[in-house]
């Protein structure tokens, strides 16, 4: 087993053990995601009444392995299994999950100090889900604000967006967060703790009896959360940059050039093509 532990240099090294954990978390998150995708669901617009996902599986696994890579495997699993594989990939929107989920889960996982303390476990699982859901709601609201031109001019629309997203946040927290999050996690974590880790040749996390949660409060992880949120928002909003530019350009541009301003996106995409092409053909020396 000692051979497996070689190659742990640097903070961001990705060794064989990390790879095992990554594959494990990714496969299970993906399976969970693909399975709950098939389940019948009552969806009304942004409101989801149904099994959003067996969120307890990824959270418990991240709490067991407590590495950033384990947390990163959660959105990757969702993207690979649930989106790319089934062709539901939504481009930059996936960036949101890729940036937000790992930092929120990692931050929460670090807070768990005493694995035998049920209250702590429940709070940690709740925090992980609440953080992620809160930021996601925020981004959803912002997305409509960026994407719909003259939103403020339509009476009642901004309010209705906030109402719908707010109700969605609450139902999501109740259904996904508590019924399929905290409650099953309380059963699953003690059952897996100390059993799965040895299968991958790792020591289980011992923690300390009676250790307070604030000991695990990591400034760096919190900073990660605070940095990831604006980044995720930018990723979401980037896809809407065109929309934002339209508002600025529209009047003069249309008067001056008519619809021939289409040259702009074509030139822009040609530039993108050239850059990517260069990157793909001229490999930098490694």
């Amino acid at each position, binding site marked *: 087993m000692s051979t497996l532990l070689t190659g742990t240099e640097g903070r961001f090294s990705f060794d*064989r053990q990390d*790879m*095992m954990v990554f*594959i494990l978390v*990714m*496969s*299970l998150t*993906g*399976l969970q995601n*693909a*399975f709950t995708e098939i389940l019948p669901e009552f969806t*009304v*617009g*942004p409101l989801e009444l149904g099994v959003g996902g*067996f969120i307890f*599986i990824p959270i418990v696994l991240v709490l067991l392995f407590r590495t950033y890579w384990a947390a990163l495997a959660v959105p*990757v699993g969702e993207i*690979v*299994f649930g989106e*790319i*594989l*089934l*062709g*539901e*990939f*939504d*481009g930059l929107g996936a960036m949101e999950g890729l940036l937000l989920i790992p930092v929120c889960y990692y931050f929460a996982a670090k807070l768990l100090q005493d694995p035998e303390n049920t209250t702590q476990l429940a709070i940690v699982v709740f925090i992980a889900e609440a953080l992620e859901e809160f930021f996601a709601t925020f981004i959803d609201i912002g997305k409509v604000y960026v*994407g*719909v*031109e*003259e*939103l403020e001019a*339509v*009476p*009642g*629309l901004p*309010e*209705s967006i906030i*109402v*719908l997203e707010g109700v969605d946040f609450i139902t999501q927290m109740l259904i996904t967060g508590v019924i*399929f999050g905290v409650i*099953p996690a309380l059963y699953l974590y003690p*059952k897996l703790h100390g059993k799965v880790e040895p*299968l*991958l040749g790792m020591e289980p996390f011992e923690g300390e009896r009676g250790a307070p949660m604030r000991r695990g409060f990591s400034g760096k992880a919190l900073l990660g959360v605070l940095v990831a949120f604006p980044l995720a928002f930018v990723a979401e909003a980037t*896809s*809407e940059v*065109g*929309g934002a*530019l*339209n508002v600025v350009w529209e009047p003069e541009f249309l008067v001056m050039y008519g*619809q*021939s301003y*289409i040259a702009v*996106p074509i030139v822009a*995409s040609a530039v*993108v093509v050239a850059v*990517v092409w260069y990157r*793909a053909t001229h*490999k930098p020396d490694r």
Partner: protein
Amino acid sequence: MMAALDDLREATSVEAIKSDLLRTAYENEGSFLHKLDPRVLLLWYVVFLFVPWLFYDVTVLLGLLVFVSALAMLSRVSLFLVGLMTFTVATTLGSYAVVTVFTGDPVAAVRALIPFTLKLTIISVSSLAVFSSMGPKTLSQGLQSLGIPRQFTFLITYGYRMLPVLFEEYHDLVNSFRLRSTAPSNPGWFRWRHYTYLLKLSMRAFYPMIFNVAKRSRVTVEAMEARGFSHSLQDDASTDLRLADMKIRPLDVGFFAGSLTLVAVLAVFI
């Protein structure tokens, strides 16, 4: 009438949806987009992520939607996914309208939201077309040539390979749990007792699944190491060999240029 209902039930059964989704993931060998180079396809996708945002005219957006829908038809996307998407779009608009009845003017709200929704739909349809017509090998080759580390492109291929296996295994576990337990004798209103029972069971079936997957992932990584995976990561010759059979042909260039021309034509003449 009954026959139609039976057909509907048949088409929406979990088993049918499962095979439909797996077919989307695997069997698109012959489709038009599948013949293109993955790099060109990914690039086309990136361009089409941005193109819809440059227009606000509903007619142009509808034209774009028709174009990407035609591509999606050519790449034989799953009907279930298309249905799911249509339903989501319709209910999103509907729910905003319902809530704005109380807060303001629903007609104006829907009118303001239509271009936005159309743009999102164009992007979703083009994602469906692109990603359901790319096989695991082509996709990971394409991503690797664009600079994504090999560990991660490997994971995509692994995911494709494993999904049906995991599905099967999970299904077996659920069935064996069902065999060893008793369903509630009284199904209750709307069979809610029955559904809760199934739901609980499918959550419990994940417990043995976690150990299976843990063991499998360890074996996978060890087998890869035995074949020199980490060593090949640093080796340029291995990368070159891996990407050698990708070629940009006139068809690719034609497709890309054709799409852009179509966008230009739509913009200028409509």
